[in-house]
């Protein structure tokens, strides 16, 4: 993956998570993967198209998703959730949108132009994701509610 793309995603994930959860965020070692990867339980996927093509996935366990959504809702003086209902999914969607949106804005400033698709949420047991012909950058983020893996697979359009 092009070096210039890495930092905007890492920085915006860090900033947005710290802001919406109002807590410390720890970034793990970045690494690359290209085989099929297990999905932890809840995944929000945002597609990218333009100078590049690919997608960004935010992957976490169901438990972490509920805790993060609750923390975000409580910060807005709303009721926390106990199961992953429509409100919970919408909240995770919003989180994915905020992080990807901020990263793409930074990339626009650097001269790379591309558009986003609305996030889609997948949830279930024993899921895997694989991307033909693209290697994925994994950015692990630790927050008090659990671990979020940000999985960025994008390539230059030839």
């Amino acid at each position: 993956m092009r070096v210039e793309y890495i930092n905007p995603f890492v920085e915006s994930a860090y900033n947005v998570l710290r802001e919406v959860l109002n807590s410390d965020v720890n970034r793990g070692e970045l690494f690359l993967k290209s085989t099929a990867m297990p999905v932890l339980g809840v995944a929000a996927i945002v597609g990218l198209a333009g100078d590049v093509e690919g997608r960004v996935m935010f992957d976490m366990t169901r438990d972490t998703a509920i805790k993060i959504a609750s923390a975000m809702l409580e910060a807005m003086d709303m009721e926390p959730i106990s199961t992953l209902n429509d409100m919970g999914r919408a909240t995770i969607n919003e989180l994915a949108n905020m992080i990807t949106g901020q990263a793409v804005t930074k990339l626009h400033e650097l001269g790379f132009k591309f558009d986003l698709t609305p996030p889609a949420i997948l949830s279930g047991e024993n899921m895997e994701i694989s991307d033909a012909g693209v290697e994925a950058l994994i950015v692990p983020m630790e927050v008090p509610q659990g671990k979020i893996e940000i999985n960025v697979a994008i390539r230059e359009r030839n």
Partner: protein
Amino acid sequence: MKWNNGNDKQQPSASATGVASRGLRTLGFGFGRDDESREEIERIDFKMVTFSLAGKDYGIDIMKVKEIAKFERFTFVPNARPFVAGVYNLRGEIISIIDLRVMFNLPAEQHSDGTPQDGLILRLEDNLIGVIVDRIDRVVGISSESIQPPHPIFADINIGYISGVVEHEDRLYITLDVDRIFTKESEKARAVDQSRSVMETPPGEPIEEPARVTAPDEQQEFSFISEGLATFDKLYASAINQQWLQQRFEQWRQERSEVQKPIQFADEHDAAAFVRPFFSANSEQLWDRSYSEAVRAVLPHAETMVVNAWNPGCAKGHESYSLAAILSAYYSGKRVKIWAGDNDLLSISTAPNLILAEETVPAHMQEFTVGTANGVTFSAGIKEMILFEYHDIRHESGVPHAHIVVCRDLLSLLEPEVQQQVLTKFYETLVNGGVLIVGDNEQLDDDTRWQPLSDQVQAYCKV
């Protein structure tokens, strides 16, 4: 003194075998310091990776060790035997991890959660297994003749698991027989029999050896060196670097005898010293005029308006910029694009904005650089030609087709089977007549695919 104690314990064992002269001979080797001439003819033909368990030193035959590892975050397996620490994902392969201390009923050092633990990955007959130890020490080369039979005094560990005891630099190492340790329960009975027969004919068996080093010994030393390089992650021996390895081995043998050190590697520094001359000229710096001209002379003719090049293993990008400068001049009027990748995040992150000290830029490249506050950098025109990617060569690459592939010294750092896969990938990516440039000390001998082009640079044309 530690050795004296060991000696007292060993002597009855040796004579108990009924061959007193053998015991004396073996001891003679152990006390080589008292007997200069004997020490000189002692041959290093057994290497072991040494480590400690509960404060004692142990060794495992290096041929059984696939790699030295740090284990962290392995997965606990419910209802497994107590010494099974869990399973571990070794680059996609799931292996079991055994805690040797628990297995041998030794006190385990307490680790706070999350600290990586020292361990070895062992290559058994039909599978890989990981073992956790207190601490990895180093690689020790010894003469197999100096290994003495095990003695029942070592009660910590079942005697059947010990293949011998050896003294090296005033330390006593217990050598473990890993194949026997990890045989299945059903085979235990047979293992005990074997251990008994090992007791009767210890590995210390003296055979009258000529003092002269014979060809098979050299072969063995050479294969130890190759294994050692792989163990220390320095280089993987294969047809690609065979010729250099053999020359370097001869040279190394001389260097080491001049400073009176053993040929085998004692530690990582020795392996690093061995491999240092391997790396090509102009590594981690801009290419000098003569290398640039040699590369220019082998560039293929391109009919298309777009010329693509691929530069995996570009590190901080010196190589990619040097190549860009040559290509932009040679293919003037055409659009040149270079895909440059490396899996070292720190190096590749600095590549797009590489700043150089002005005096390190060779005269023929100065026209492509511009000054900045801290030094010089390449002009926007050159930078636009190169796409720096965080990329692992083992994975899929986004490079479409290429006229030139520059991959210097990287192939030799990959496992032999990966080397072949990557070479095939290069072959498929190159256009007909495309050129592959490898490291100064690397060679491709498959003339059905690669035809050598030059004496000055290791360049091959796709056949």
